[in-house]
């Protein structure tokens, strides 16, 4: 049996020789969900990263601890990666909306049936994070992008746009606000709690 300095490992009672290699790929790959957080009240939701999860409710559980445990936020959204429409990336300082093919913009009087809400996210600079700019109503993701161009196209710069059908975003509940306010109490996870200079100075004086 494998003997470790870690009592937890010894309790696993692992064999000394490794078992037969296993190819876990096909079995295990969960879909990914993209996660957005709201840093403080009234701030725009901004992209923080993906999680792997079988479904949206589990993605939400995972996202909460992976992306809010160290830096407080007031709310979180998750969306399946596969449900997000992405434009090409433009150069920094430019607007990617200018690169989009010109399609007829749906007239405001178009049949309201089949219209859905879409949330629009802009990336202002390569290497930074996408942030929410607003919602549009449209009959398809392509039409939503055109509508976004009309609504937000004057913003500069925009190097990339994400379009997400609003129904595909799972949003934290306003009722659960108290779930997000616990992070600032956990001082032991903050660098500022570790002040050791006094001890060093005392040691030097005594030395």
């Amino acid at each position, binding site marked *: 049996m494998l003997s470790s300095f*870690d009592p937890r490992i010894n309790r696993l009672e692992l064999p000394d020789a490794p078992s037969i290699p296993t190819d*876990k790929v096909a*079995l295990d790959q*969960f879909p*990914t969900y993209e996660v957005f957080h709201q840093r403080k009240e009234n701030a725009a939701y901004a992209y923080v990263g993906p999680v792997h999860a079988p479904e949206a409710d589990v993605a939400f559980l995972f996202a909460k601890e992976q992306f809010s445990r160290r830096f407080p936020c007031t709310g979180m959204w998750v969306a399946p990666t596969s449900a997000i429409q992405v434009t090409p990336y433009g150069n920094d300082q430019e607007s990617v909306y200018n690169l989009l093919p010109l399609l007829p913009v749906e007239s405001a009087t178009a049949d309201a049936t089949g219209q859905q809400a879409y949330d629009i996210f802009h990336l202002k600079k*390569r290497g930074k994070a996408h942030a929410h700019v607003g919602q549009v109503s449209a009959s398809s993701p392509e039409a939503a992008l055109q509508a976004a161009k009309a609504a937000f196209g004057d913003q500069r710069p925009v190097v990339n746009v994400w379009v997400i059908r609003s129904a595909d975003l799972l949003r934290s509940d306003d009722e659960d606000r108290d779930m997000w306010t616990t992070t600032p109490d956990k001082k032991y996870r903050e660098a500022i709690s570790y002040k*050791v200079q006094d001890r060093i100075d005392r040691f030097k004086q005594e030395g």
Partner: protein
Amino acid sequence: MYGSASTHDIPAKATTGLENEDPILLAEFEARIARGEKIEPTDWMPQLYRKQLTRMIEQHAHSEIIGSLPEGTWITRAPGFRRKMAQMAKVQDEVGHAQLLYSAAETLGKTREQMLSDLVNGKSKYSNVFNYPTPTWADSNVISWLIDAGAIVNQLANAKGSYGPYCRALDRICAEEAFHLKYGHDAVVHMATGTPIQRKMMQEALNRWWPAIMTFFGPSDKMSTHTEILMRWKVKMATNDACRQQFLDMYVPKIWEIGLTLPDANLRKNEDGVWEFSEPDWEDFKRVINGDGPCNAERIAVRRAAEENGAWVRRAMQQPQARYVRPLA
């Protein structure tokens, strides 16, 4: 927590493959990096860039998940509430960093499960220092402070690299590591300035770890065509020697000021401000990185057990209609 950018495992004379790339696209790509713009996942990129970044970010991710084990060794035994909770939070962060880094690597096309599969089947490397054991609480403190300090030197450099998703992950990781560094320093200072039992335990742990720490950034870089290209593309941001010098300059005085000694009679700063030291045993380094270290087998076996014991959970949660696509950013 991660050491060198691992260019040491690229054969120096390997072909760069650049002759097969479209010269116009390549020129645009290089111009973008030269302008200081980041590369994003759907941009065109040379094969060599994709391959090297995938390997580097993947190894970094493995180093985090494996790196959680030597400190995890003391998670149930940390003395007192303050240390117990912080040790848990720190080990948790290492797992969190692995999650962020695997995601960044996935944007380049390799799935997380493929990476984990390669890890548990011994096909991938991770930072060599984690192949050494932590026989005492003090050893865990040395990792928390000095290995994380080394990792931060490296990660701050890499955060200025050219690949957007890696930069985003590193920005977050560096912000989180600020706690690790302070926590580790705090714990080491308490031991070094504490009772005779504590002082002895800490000095012995430091003596054990110093040779490994000196190899943390990897051997001196051989300036090959590869290295030059990777530096031009901002994949590799600083030479191993530059990182090592920066680390020594920042931390040796902090080690000495609390009355600890380092087991290298040749260690000193010369008049030019350059640190001199005994050359680390690179033969031993190679031997360990290739599998023959004190804990290589255990680290892989434990990770594999975690995967195998969790397989039924993942199997049960899998949805038949689920479709995996690469994370976007």
